[in-house]
């Protein structure tokens, strides 16, 4: 999670090794996160289905659990095969960073392997193939174990990223190496707590919308209608809860952390160029970093000050107050990534609560436009989650470890551009093939549908 997106390649000389390392990390991690993004949330929904089937005697829930386990299985495989390269990309592309910080972030990366991966790999097979042998109760326990494993994994990755965003528990030696000073301080980084919940809830949101979208698809096409209703109900309720919590308190707490510890990032992602008392919140507009204005702005007066400090007249520092060398190197992309995330997040609240209201009144299944909207919503939580990570990673620039190590000082110096391009093209080709396989298999699973037993 170190790199800064495709814009960095365009902004820099195309064969600059650091830009290529960034592009390769950004590409492989963005692609990878399409899979765990679903499985962490879907793991929870599978536990819910398994609970209903096992302890509430709901036969439809058992069919739902089996169906979604198949989707989970395919996603998990691609999550694993695209995840293994990530552990090695730190050393391959970011050797100077890994050498300097390995004593700190190596702790959590090793914890992830030891506490999360063993748990997941031991129980995944039982979840996917062991239902008959285990019986319902033990199978339910396997579902819980896999979900817990994936959430533990997320915690350790978030702690690692939080250290890069807001380093704590460390000491910087005169030679530039970074040494662990307090493991407990490092593991309980205050930055990590809202970031973890924001990430997990974002994942639950993706899973909820995927479940309701597939349900809406079945319902609208008149197939598996009873299952379809169950998917829609579960998905809509979970999405309604998650879409609110992801914004408040989780996202809100994260924004406040940013305002306090990364004020430059905060100003850049809000498109806020000049220091103001009672700053407005820009909803739409295109940042012009040369003239230092937001073009075509639509602004809610004083809202930014209030949301950040709960005072209408609070002062928000603008980008112009800071040295350009400390600005994120791609302010427009950062601004758009953030606004895409927030804009989509707002629509998720509207869509899920609107659908929930119709559901409570018993009208959702007669109102086709709402079902169409739920069906077509499927890609958008993926876009919002990706945009959220782009915001976090572009916002951290030009730092690799905020305030401690610049991105250009962390990249590997011994690998030539041609060799990086070789591996980047290799990953792109391989992942293009994975995409074809993935869509082919998921399309088949959805085509077969849940068994109507």
């Amino acid at each position, binding site marked *: 999670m170190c790199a800064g997106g495709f814009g960095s390649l365009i902004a820099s000389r195309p064969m600059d090794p650091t830009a290529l390392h960034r592009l390769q990390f950004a590409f492989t991690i963005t692609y990878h996160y399409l899979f765990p993004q679903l499985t962490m949330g879907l793991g929870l929904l599978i536990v819910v289905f398994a609970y209903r089937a096992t302890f509430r005697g709901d036969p439809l829930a058992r069919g739902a659990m*089996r169906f979604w*386990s*198949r989707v989970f*299985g*395919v996603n998990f*495989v691609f999550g*694993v*095969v695209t995840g*293994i390269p990530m*552990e*090695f990309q*730190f*050393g*391959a*592309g970011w*050797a*100077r*960073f*890994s*050498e*300097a*910080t*390995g*004593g*700190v972030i*190596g*702790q959590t*990366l*090793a*914890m*992830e*392997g*030891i506490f999360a*991966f*063993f*748990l997941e*790999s*031991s129980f995944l*097979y*039982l979840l*996917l*193939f062991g*239902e*008959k042998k285990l019986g319902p109760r033990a199978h339910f326990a396997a579902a819980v174990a896999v979900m817990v494993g994936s959430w533990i994994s997320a915690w350790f990755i978030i702690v690692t990223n939080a250290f890069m965003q807001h380093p704590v528990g460390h000491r910087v030696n005169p030679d530039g190496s970074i*040494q*662990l*000073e307090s*493991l407990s301080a490092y593991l309980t980084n205050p930055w990590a707590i809202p970031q973890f919940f924001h990430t997990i809830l974002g994942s639950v949101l993706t899973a909820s919308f995927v479940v309701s979208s597939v349900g809406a698809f079945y319902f609208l096409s008149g197939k598996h209608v009873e299952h379809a209703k169950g998917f829609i109900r579960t998905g809509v309720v979970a999405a309604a809860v998650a879409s609110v919590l992801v914004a408040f308190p989780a996202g809100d707490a994260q924004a406040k952390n940013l305002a306090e510890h990364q004020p430059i990032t905060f100003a850049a992602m809000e498109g806020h160029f000049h220091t103001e008392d009672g700053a407005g919140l820009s909803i739409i507009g295109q940042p012009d970093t040369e003239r230092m204005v937001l073009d075509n702005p639509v602004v809610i007066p004083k809202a930014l000050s209030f949301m950040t400090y709960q005072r209408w007249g609070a002062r928000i520092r603008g980008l112009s107050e800071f040295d350009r060398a400390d600005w994120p190197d791609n302010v427009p992309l950062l601004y758009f990534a953030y606004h895409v995330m927030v804009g989509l997040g707002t629509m998720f609240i509207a869509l899920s609560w609107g659908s929930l209201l119709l559901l409570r009144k018993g009208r959702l299944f007669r109102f086709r436009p709402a079902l169409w909207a739920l069906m077509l919503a499927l890609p958008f939580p993926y876009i919002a989650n990706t945009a959220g990570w782009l915001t976090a990673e572009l916002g951290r620039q030009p730092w690799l470890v905020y305030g401690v190590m610049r991105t250009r000082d962390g990249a*590997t110096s*011994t*690998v*030539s551009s041609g*060799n990086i391009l*070789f*591996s980047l093209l*290799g990953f792109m080709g*391989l992942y293009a093939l994975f995409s074809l*396989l993935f869509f082919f*298999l998921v399309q*088949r699973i959805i085509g077969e549908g849940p068994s109507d037993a």
Partner: protein
Amino acid sequence: MTLASVWVALAGLLLAVYVALDGFDLGAGILHLFVARTPAERKTVLKSIGPVWDGNEVWLLAGGATIFLAFPRLYAIGVSGFYLPVMILLWLLAARALGIEMKHYLHHPLWDEAWDFAFSAGSLLVTLFLGVALGNVIRGVTFDEDGRFFSPLWTDFTVGAKVGILDPYTLLVGVTATILVTLHGALWLAHRTGGEVRDRAERAARRLVAPAVVALALVTVATAFVQPLVRDAMCRPTFAPLPAMTLAGLGGVYVFLRRQDPRRAFFASAGLLVSLVASAVAGIHPYVLPGRAPGQGLLAEQAATSPYGLSAALVWWIPGVLIAAGYTVFVYRGLPSRVEVTAEAEPEGAPHD
């Protein structure tokens, strides 16, 4: 014993467990196309490793992350120095994983044929690459003046001062590793499967014993010439238990195969693999990555993180690995003692078929 050497031993332990565990599913993969010929037989091979292969590979990830944690400099310099083979290895691991997992989701003869090939070829190349990697570590690399390196895939194919990834020595280690891992996989299949698969696997194991002995003898002699650190280590009496264990492992494989006891032969082979990893780690000690020029090289002490980091990690690492070992034991105890070849497509189909 310093903290750094404790961590060399712990990281070495994870890698040894990795080789003993993932070794058999890699070996089963190499033999897959040869010992299993009908769809039902191929299903049998996959079923015997299906519940465990992923967990086996986690030992490699845990080992890699442990090196990252305890020896950041080794991790950084090593992974970036071996950039090209690391990337290619990652692609091969991905292709092989799909080879095992994709067959769950679709049943079609061509689909099966393609993924059986990916599984088998992927297993062979992954094993060869990992063996070559071990050879590179033992032989040492050409460091620059900053103490870093970048290994091309090959230079002039000699074991001189300027070396690449592939040369006669590293290839010899790679081929030896492939023979031993194939033997290990054959013993697993002989122990855990039935019918024709079992018989063919047992015949393969018998045929592999002699090549294994020859390859090990060649590697031992070649290593003594290529890496003086190991040659010196071999002369120390404290090192003697390791070659003794290697010989005992080899002897065990031979004797138990003759007594038609593939289970014990498998455990002997696991001991053999563990002894070889341990010999490599102990042989180059106190270095963790030797250099080609005398006096060059990365020492464990230089590569290690701070003493606080090392001791703080011990507190969670040891219980964590014990818990992980507990899961591993749990999963292996749940395996069927023998996967028989069944004519009908039984459980190993799609989930919940």
